[in-house]
């Protein structure tokens, strides 16, 4: 029997926005609800998810799979203190793991899709390198985490654009529009491609039929937004506004899941190496986490295909 896990990727461009924190807490909440959950630390070269879960070190992890000492990725999923919650760490990988080879990347993506769990949560690193983008696009749902600061919003938007551009290129390649891509790549040397929408527009004007196909494919994209470290004095509608702008100016579906209230004690929970939602269950922040986690699961029923091409294994 094969179980098709629902895969979520948590990314967001900027470091320190709380991607790992949210991954760990969402994972704990899913596990508490009885979902067999595994967290995959794909912040390669910056792994620290294990620390949030109370591990001082993890003996086996992604590296054991990559160097073929184990043949099945699920065997390196170590159980955590929380029932139903497992972790695949990448802390055992070499220091150069950040620069992953293409074959290794594909191997990881394929293995993740075969993991025998209900829910897989992928914790991604900052930045918008190809590895991060491809891991993100390999999930069923992508979650962008940002904080209410201009720097964070900027990086998130850059990340969204990068994801979008990567997907546009994937689609163009998939439908053998490669001549268009080459043409555009040539043009972009002189006139830097700043907005991926430019490409879509150019394809549409040059070749309306293919443009339509591209638009249709792009509309299948479903992205979620989470506003972390929300503080009282900030515009309550900020997340909804960003959702609106994204939906208006990209051909894709964005959904704002909710605000996660800032709490000083998050720091304590990190120091204590415990899950915040378990250590402080009756705080506004934990309530927010719970609600957002529920929102994540509620809407995931419809999408069965991965956002990017890598899901089609």
């Amino acid at each position, binding site marked *: 029997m094969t179980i098709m896990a629902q895969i979520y990727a948590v990314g967001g461009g900027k470091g320190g926005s709380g991607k790992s924190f949210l991954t760990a807490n969402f994972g704990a909440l899913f596990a508490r609800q009885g979902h067999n959950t595994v967290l995959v630390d794909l912040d390669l070269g910056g792994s620290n998810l294990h620390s949030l879960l109370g591990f001082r070190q993890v003996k086996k992890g992604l590296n054991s799979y990559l160097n073929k000492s184990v043949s099945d990725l699920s065997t390196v999923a170590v159980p955590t203190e929380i029932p139903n919650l497992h972790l695949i760490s990448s802390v055992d990988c070499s220091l150069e793991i950040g620069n992953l080879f293409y074959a290794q990347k594909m191997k990881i993506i394929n293995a993740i899709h075969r993991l025998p769990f209900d829910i897989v949560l992928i914790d991604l690193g900052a930045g918008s390198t190809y590895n991060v983008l491809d891991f993100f696009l390999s999930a069923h749902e992508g979650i962008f985490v940002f904080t*209410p*600061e*201009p720097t964070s*919003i*900027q990086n*998130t*938007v*850059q990340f969204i654009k990068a994801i979008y551009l990567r997907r546009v290129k994937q689609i163009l390649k998939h439908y053998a529009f490669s001549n268009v891509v080459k043409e555009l790549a040539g043009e972009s040397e002189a006139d830097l491609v*700043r907005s991926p929408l430019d490409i879509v527009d150019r394809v549409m004007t040059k070749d309306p039929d293919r443009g339509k196909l591209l638009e249709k494919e792009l509309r299948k994209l479903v992205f979620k937004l989470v506003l972390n470290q929300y503080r009282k004095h900030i*515009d309550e509608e*900020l997340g909804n*506004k*960003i959702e*609106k*702008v994204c*939906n*208006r*100016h990209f*051909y894709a579906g964005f959904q704002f899941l909710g605000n996660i209230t800032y709490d000083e004690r998050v720091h304590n929970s990190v120091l204590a190496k415990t899950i915040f939602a378990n250590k402080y269950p009756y705080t506004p922040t934990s309530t927010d986490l719970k609600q957002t986690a529920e929102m994540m699961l509620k809407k995931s029923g419809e999408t069965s295909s991965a956002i990017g091409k890598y899901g089609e294994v």
Partner: protein
Amino acid sequence: MERFENLNYYELLEVPVNALPFEIRQAYRNALSIYEEESMISDSFFTDDERNAILRRIEEAFSTLIDKGQRGGYNKELIDAGVIDASLLEKGKPKSKGPIPLFSLKKTGGQESLSARVRNRIERKDFMEVSREILSKSLISGKDLERLRKHVGIAVEEIFEVTRISLKVLTAIESDDVASLPRTFYLKNFLKAYAELFNLDSRKVIDGYLENIAYLKNTK
């Protein structure tokens, strides 16, 4: 979703075609909070040129829709182009969306209150001649006030609606019923309210009326 450049003004501001001016104003403010220069969102998404182009369009949309005449012309364009259905423009029942003013006595959303409608009717009517004639008299009787009221076409009950002076008092005033009139202090205030409703010089009305009452008392 339609491309941003192709959105019509209503779609741009995200208001229904039959939106009320206050809704348009609110929507405009919301749009600015996203796209204006100080907004945290806009500088992440857009270059200055793009943002300025968007802001220009929002400005254009707002200034067109907030102006009754321009909006009518624009609606016509949209209907002619087949973008919107003419039936949408008919004023449906305004949705009870948004905050309801705390101290509003209005029971129905869209309709003006009765007192406001009475005031409007008085305002629209030209009765300068009659009022000037009445004010020129040194003695002003209740009959004069009644004559003016009937000339303008206002029922005594409507005066009550606006001024909240009881019908009993109003009829007493208009019929110079000295015995039923309230005490002078109250009477003055009632006369003042009555006179101001018809844009009369209240001091003259009060003086004229009181003198008339005194005259009536003496002649009895």
